[in-house]
């Protein structure tokens, strides 16, 4: 089985601060990988590097056959294969939920209006928001906005989906509805990489959990093993989070 995402010895600094210090890991088709760790451990940066939102200084990243580290990277082609959902949703405030979803399929994939509309409806239904199609983002709760953002990303039919602390800005109540959508996606076989603080979700859904610390992959273990870490640092981290 070939890796869909492969990081090898990735280094990155912000000024004098070393954020990624030789990070390597692989994600195979259909796997769900949860990246956990304290804030400042480099986990979000790693995710942003995978989508070429940040440049790397050393090492290599391959995503669906795109070489992220290369000068010849076709960013648009990469983004057709990779979807990303942000902590702050980043919906387009001037468009309705449905229009948010239709925008990229119509202007990037060149779908007709009718097809795009059907696609949007279908994606909204998948995140349980079919009835909110005509609502503007500000009329939706945070959880609903985040589900629309997931649907928007889904509509581009990506091969990999990245989730950057997507529930961190939400109340516990609203967190549940977003995690439910993500769990459904995982069961549907989507390849997913998520940066998260939700330990129980990682344990339940993740194929593998990557614990990052000081810009390094400190420990990797299967999700269901999360309660039995081998390093004391992860044991302490899991203890503090649960």
């Amino acid at each position, binding site marked *: 089985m070939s890796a869909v995402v492969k990081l090898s010895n990735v280094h990155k600094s912000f000024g004098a601060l070393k954020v990624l210090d030789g990070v390597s890991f692989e994600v195979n088709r259909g796997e769900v990988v949860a990246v956990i760790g304290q804030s400042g451990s480099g986990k979000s940066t790693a995710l942003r590097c995978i989508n070429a939102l940040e440049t790397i200084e050393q090492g290599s990243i391959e995503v669906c056959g795109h070489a992220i580290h290369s000068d010849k990277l076709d960013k648009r082609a990469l*983004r057709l294969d990779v979807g990303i959902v942000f902590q702050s949703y*980043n919906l387009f405030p*001037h468009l309705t939920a449905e229009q948010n979803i239709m*925008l*990229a399929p119509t202007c*990037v994939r060149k779908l007709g209006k009718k097809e795009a509309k059907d696609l949007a409806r279908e994606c909204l239904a998948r995140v349980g928001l079919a009835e909110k199609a005509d609502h503007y983002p500000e009329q939706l709760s945070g959880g609903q906005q985040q589900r629309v953002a997931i649907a928007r990303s889904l509509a581009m039919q990506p091969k990999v989906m990245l989730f950057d602390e997507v529930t961190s800005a939400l109340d516990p109540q609203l967190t549940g509805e977003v995690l439910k959508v993500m769990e459904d996606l995982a069961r549907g076989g989507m390849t997913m990489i998520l940066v998260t603080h939700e330990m129980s979700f990682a344990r339940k859904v993740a194929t593998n959990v990557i614990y990052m610390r000081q810009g390094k992959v400190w420990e990797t273990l299967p999700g269901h093993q999360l309660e039995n870490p081998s390093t004391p640092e992860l044991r302490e981290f899991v203890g503090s989070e649960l």
Partner: protein
Amino acid sequence: MPTFGFNHVEFLLVAALWTLGLSAIAFIGGGILGFVIALARVSSSALVRGLAGAYVRIVQGTPLLILLFLIYFGLAIVGFNNLPAIIAAGAGLVIYSSGFLGEIWRGCIESVPKTQWEAAECLAMTRWQRMTRVILPQAARIATAPTVGFLVQIIKNTSLASVVGFVELSQAGKLINNSTFQPFIVFITVAVIYFLICYPLSAWSRGLERRLNVGRR
């Protein structure tokens, strides 16, 4: 000596139409050119950004009066000696407006959060699509109030067109004053007409701004 009377008021009102006409030219022409400037100011090319920045600095750093003189005498140099005054006046005000509108609109474009660019980028949209479909519609909402506010500046500044021989409201007032020498009544009438044109626009601009702030909370 004639005294200020109804026919003078009529003369002023006709001149006020010229003020409005010149303002329209300045706003439309300056708007088109200013839009190009605003886009150039946020261009990905440093050279284009720099040139547009220099243009804005020069226009904003030169008095409109001097700009009008330069265009008037510049046109004469290249052989247009007997052009109607509205050409020089229009050109000067278009350049003046483009410098300021371009800068106002650049601010509006840049006030759209960076994350919106990023989100659109991650949906594989091209730079042009990101600009036209995501950023500009949001910038336009922010821009309405200051743009209407600047329209008031344009209307007031058309008063300087008199220096290139264009008879608009202020110049008409000056002509009447020269014959009647009743400056108070003449220029107060002129000021009242300007106020009646400008005040509703100012009030509208403020209303738009309030609504935008409420919308943003």
